[in-house]
């Protein structure tokens, strides 16, 4: 089957639209394990390689998630061989987010997160941004702000708990309003 330019553009658009869903799904299958971005990238590559085997009109997201799942399991096997502690596969299946999240739902959570982040103080926000943006060690940030690293960990715990609560409230309110 020839894959013309229009089909290519449509296919790429599909991949682009499902990035958040794939990211969320992959994290749900490998909580606390490094390599989420790598697995996502590998998934994107396989999606493109197999583009001609995708049947238009069928559920693209389900198909993409099945490929992501295969990639995660492969990654888990490697980590398991290296002695990393991983949830049992049956529990992983139980916990895994069903790959049905609509992009709009994930967008809603991201918007809610933005709102909730704006409620943080400057120092709280700075700590969160360091943790999730810089990728460097908390100890380094502790030196910068002249606070013990353990104290920052406690703050992060508290901030995340507050963000979780805040997002849940926003989603609930949005659900009631819509």
């Amino acid at each position, binding site marked *: 089957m020839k894959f013309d330019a229009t089909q290519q553009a449509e296919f790429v658009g599909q991949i682009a639209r499902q990035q958040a869903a794939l990211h969320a799904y992959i994290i749900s299958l490998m909580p606390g394990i490094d390599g989420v971005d790598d697995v996502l990238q*590998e998934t994107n590559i396989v999606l493109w390689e197999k583009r001609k085997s995708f049947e238009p009109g069928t559920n693209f997201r389900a198909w993409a998630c099945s490929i992501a799942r295969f990639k995660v399991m492969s990654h888990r096997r490697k980590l398991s061989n290296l002695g990393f502690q991983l949830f049992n596969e049956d529990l992983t299946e139980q916990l895994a987010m069903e790959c049905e999240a609509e992009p709009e739902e994930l967008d809603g959570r991201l918007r809610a997160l933005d709102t909730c982040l704006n409620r943080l103080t400057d120092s709280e926000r700075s700590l969160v941004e360091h943790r999730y943006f810089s990728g460097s060690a908390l100890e380094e940030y502790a030196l910068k702000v002249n606070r013990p690293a353990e104290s920052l960990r406690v703050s992060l715990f508290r901030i995340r708990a507050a963000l979780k609560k805040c997002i849940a409230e926003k989603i609930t309110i949005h659900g009631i309003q819509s």
Partner: protein
Amino acid sequence: MTPAELESHLQDLFEGRLEREVFENLQEELRSNPEARKVYREYHHLEHALRFRSKGVDLLNIVPMDQVHARRQRRTIRNAGLAAVALVTIGLIAMALILTRSPTPTLVFLTSPGTDFKISHSRYGEDAPNGQVLEPGSRMIIESGTVKLKFNSGVRAFVRGPADLTLQREDLLDLQSGAALFNVPEQAIGFKVGTPDFVLTDLGTEFGILAKPNFLDEVHVFKGEVEVAHRKGLKKKELLIRGQARVADSTGKWQMTPLRRDHFLNKLPPTAPQRTVLTGVTIKDVSSELVGDFGVLFSNFDRGAIHVLDGSGFDEALGEHNVIPDGNRGGGMWLNSGTYSPRSPDAPNDPNAPNDPNAPGAVITFDLGGSTTLHSVTVWNYNETARPDLVKRGANDVEILIAKSEGGEFTSIGDFNFTIAPGVSNQNFGQIIDLSSFPEAGDARLVRFNIKSNHGGDNNFVGLSEVRFNITSESHAK
């Protein structure tokens, strides 16, 4: 497990710092308690949202091409097309965003006369961009010359070769190597340049970047402000303003360096650069040279360092060097003394037995005769063929160091591999080593080769046939 303990353990889980005993307890709790699984999912959503949001402009997880390629190589490439497919994927994902809003090319470019470059696109066949155009995923390798990049966003850049760049997105250029000057107008603030050492985010400015293979990258700010984030080690970030310049050091910190406008071009040279050989170069010092009479069986060696400059045994026009090492026999190469010791019956313990104090290895220093802007150095390796293995005496791993003045401090610009000579006299085997992207080469008086190894030759001998230093119309002698 109490709710507070559950929350604490879940946060530790997503942080990747949960201890083994607790891990087992948490696993059991999640397996048996639906409420615990609900809390788990809430934290999972939060983790996803925070991490996905942190990607910012990298929302689509577009990774540098070299990383994709390297990852593929580690996994044993099934066929050569896979890397290309990866590039196509990435390019197309980026392109999907751009197609809808930008019918004009993302970037067009102009070149100076004589520029030697090649381009590969992530799209091919009928879909490949036409003309002097780069689209996301396009890679340009500039062997020599200068290229002007004109982004649709208004960003302008002059890139001096040798350079290797890839347009990742309309607002993200990956500069693997090269010297480039960028001018970013107000509407394009946020434009990013990635190098192997750092990522620069423009805040409305003019700045220059030196990206050097196997060496530390530099940023020079001429107007406005930029933010630079180190990719390695401590990953330090710094905000730089007009007049500041920094080197990204190997620990992840930023070191001050003098602001240098002269490393960058702000217009295309009107004529092709003419490479000419620098004259007046002399040998400043050498760790040893095999010259003299050491006994009946080993006599009249004439393999002094001067032979790498004097043209003996060398056809300057053709770039061919013969295979005779001794200047007094119609040839002329330099060979150090290595750990050689003569075994002559007449002089079994000759006190003059040559021995290089740097063996294994050797050091040779050239005096350029004055402050010089060097473009490159051409080396012809040791080409002796009295036995087939003698070409292995040729220099192999060589550190090149440059000093600004006589008696000045030497700065290493990195290690280079010199190619083994072919062992024939009818072939130009000159190896050009481009120095133009190294700031130190912009103001050089002394050049030193610290030769660390040969190609497996005997007695730790190290030698060269000929060396020439080149300047161009863009990089003239001062």
